[in-house]
């Protein structure tokens, strides 16, 4: 699910950048540092705007200036039970992997409708019901997230496509 989230971050600026357009530089650096990262619980998709840019404080020793910036960002936090659209990336005999944006989701054969079978003889290997449904790398699938695990800076999910309105789309 997507949220608008107010966050705060300390940005360090090298002394060579000290000048009149410092605030702009700080914002650029913030965007560069933060956008597209995963905190462990959610992904920061995009920064909307910044506010409360503090005064710079020179850090003793390094000479870097530290700014505290408040910003509003679009974040995506996948939830258990959430239905997402994903793109299949790789297929094997145990199931298939797919990506919903930055999140890697694995769907096992146990969570695939029984009529959709693994076909190893196809090139490339695919899951298919031998009529209209073919799941191979590149296919769009609608997946319900069954489980989530967060690591340091990364998240993994288990999904299923056996359910109403799930699967091949």
């Amino acid at each position: 699910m997507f949220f608008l989230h107010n966050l705060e971050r300390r940005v360090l600026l090298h002394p060579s950048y000290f000048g009149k357009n410092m605030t702009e530089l700080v914002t650029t650096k913030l965007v560069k540092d933060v956008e597209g990262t995963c905190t462990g619980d959610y992904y920061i998709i995009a920064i909307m705007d910044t506010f409360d840019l503090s005064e710079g404080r020179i850090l003793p020793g390094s000479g870097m200036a530290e700014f505290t910036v408040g910003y509003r960002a679009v974040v995506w936090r996948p939830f258990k039970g959430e239905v997402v659209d994903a793109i299949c990336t790789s297929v094997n005999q145990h199931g298939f992997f797919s990506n919903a944006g930055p999140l890697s989701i694995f769907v096992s054969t146990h969570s695939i409708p029984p009529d959709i079978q693994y076909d190893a003889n196809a090139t490339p290997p695919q899951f298919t019901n031998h009529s209209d449904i073919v799941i191979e790398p590149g296919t769009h699938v609608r997946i319900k997230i069954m489980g989530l695990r967060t690591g340091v800076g990364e998240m993994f999910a288990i999904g299923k496509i056996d359910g109403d309105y799930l699967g091949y789309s």
Partner: protein
Amino acid sequence: MGKTKTIRLGNRLRYPITIVRLLKNPGDTVKKQDALMEYSFKWYKEVGDTIRGETWEEEQTTYADWSSPSDGTLNAWSIKEGQVIKQDGPCVLIDEDCSHEIQFQGLCAICGKDMTEANWAAETRDTERAPISMVHDQTNLTVSSTHAQKSERELQKRLLESRKLSLVVDLDQTVIQACIDPTVGEWMKDPTNPNYDSVKNVKTFQLDDGPHAVVRKCWYYIKMRPGLEGFLKRISTMYELHVYTMGTRAYAQNVARVIDPEKKLFGNRVISRDENGNMYSKSLQRLFPVSTNMVVIIDDRSDVWPHNRPNLVKVTPYEFFKGIGDINASFLPKRQDLLTSAPSTNGVKKAEKPADKNAKAVATGKDTDEVTKEQLEEQQSALEKQINERPLQLLQEKQDKEDEEAEKATGHSDDSASSRSSSPPPQRHKVLLDDDRELEFLEKHLTQLHKAYYASYDQKKSKRTIGEDVPDVGNLLNNLKAKVLRGHQIALSGVLPQNTDIYRSEIGQQITSFGARLRSTVSKEVTHLVVNTSQPGTAKLNAARRYPHIKVVGLEWLAQCFTEWTSVDETPYLYFKEDANNVGAARQAEESSDDNDEDMGGIETGNTAPRTPQQKMNKLQIQLPPRGDDQDDDDADDDEDGLLPDEVEEGQMSPIDGLKTFNWGSAEDELAEFLASGSDDDDDDEDMDEEDEEDDEDFAPPDESESSSSSEESSASRKRSRSRSGSPATRKRKLEDDVGDGEEDGNNDDEGEENSPAKRMRRMKSARGSSLRHQYEAAPDLPTPAVTGDEDGVEDKVEEEGQNFTDLDEEALAADLEAEFAADLEAEFNSA
């Protein structure tokens, strides 16, 4: 899911325990950490005043709950209330909701639960339920062994239905060769370059997987083995193909794209070192954890498959970019098979170094991560080196220079040159030749194997003995291979370093796997002596001369046999070229006149003596009777002990020609007596050691001792070299001579007169006898320089007598040579 699991009490309880109450009944839903039953145990507590020391033990009874280690429905109890249990045993049956058989990154892929949670109620972690990683492109997807079995059964069924087998294909130097030398790119753009034709079909791709600036974004040049496309196409009808490489994932995928652009052959069955989980070896169990009965491997290295040798079809390494070797081999141990002693000019040597480090790390128990990092860096630097130094360009420049010189020498353009290089300036030779035929044979073998497999399968099936079992392709492969050289008995000479266990060496194992028997020494049973033509070991060659039926062949013969899986015709590979080319002529020359024979002998002992061992051996061969001669065969049969050299029959110059006038009977008696005394054996060994040392010390250019081959000159030159080599050696030599003399004197105390002919004779005989005995008894497989020590003493005597025992001298030379080669070989191996 409803999978019933028997749960044990666990060995963490304080047995004996008494079951007090069962809290749940069969049919109840249980959750992890739910209390299932109550039990009690008795223990002793120390009570009283610990300060005064007035303590006693009091029995206590404690009640505790026993919690469920997993979720599910309680199926049945194996215990009763009131029961006393003395040790760990089954407690309860639980129908589990999920048996967590497939896990992805610590999540159960079936129920979505987090498996990494540690729990006090369970003795094992849930992640251990799915320990097997069997997917090509992922390491973090793991399955349980039952699930692995299930999916492999499916695979097996599918393969049997389509009558296929699995074939695991190695990339580097098996089906392709890669190189990153930018020279190749330049050659490809330059039609005037002599190598333009060769590199025309080289495929390229750019990879960005190096942390260093130089290697970043570097171009890879991929040369496919000739005929690869057709080979894969035809083979893929019989085999399901997998790629298994030690390159990185990106590299593997790019190469797979090059050789299989439509992904029809390999599909997604590509595994690289990123997913392998082991930097040093490959394992079929990574892909086929349960059964490898239907899997064949083709690889150019067998040492990387430590556990899957039976399934391996070894391929001759493909070396198109000369001296580049395998760019991904820096983690692997050094190549052991000497069959293709391709000179590693530049990149390879460098790249091979880390392997030693690896071995060291294993020995010292150094942190493997650290080593891996080091090795990565080493590989990077090796790659950088290739880019910067451009070994191929150097090679071509060298070739050009040679061509120029050759041209200068001949004065006009060489015809063979123009025929070999088809590009405009025909004077330039190209260094890259595309003349590999390995895949033709490989295809034949794989087809044969496939046929044999399904023949055996159909046979089994018709007998209805087939259940879950299918024939093992490893056995069939072994049978096929074992037919190849059956009946051959092969000895090696100059192929392996001294003190190697030939039976465990790579080449030895290969010889044995092809059905031949490996012999450490040359004896009557040996049918083939395989020599390293660049470094022949003289002693065994000499020994082989005594048996005309032994075919002395170069290593290339063996390589060709391994490639073609037949016992190929030895003729082109015979070590003694006269034999191969000139059998009739040589025979005629030998038979035509005695003069001629004398001349040959003259050549043998003359001042125009050969300079290289090769030439020398060729010269020696002139004395050998040609093969297939009936008379000689008879001789060989008569001469069962191999004591009588064949040369005598030919009436040629022989070491014992001078002895023809002697009374052989008495000489034999004396010899027997001398042999029986056996007192000189130990001394011999000592002599040998000393001789070895000396040879190491005063290592002289070979031609110094060889150029003069008449006995006087030879010994004179030897003395010269000795005196030059400094006093310690000289002293040692003197000492040795003294010892030798004393020993002989000691043996001959009762003989009395010093100059009696019989004594002289015996001295010569003793020397002769010891060398013969050495061969007869098939003593250590490498020559004993001790012979030299003995013979030196004799030689001096011979000189005094003024007789011409060329053969003794020759043997001395040969032994000297041998020692030199051994030293060279050893030095090389130590430095490598």
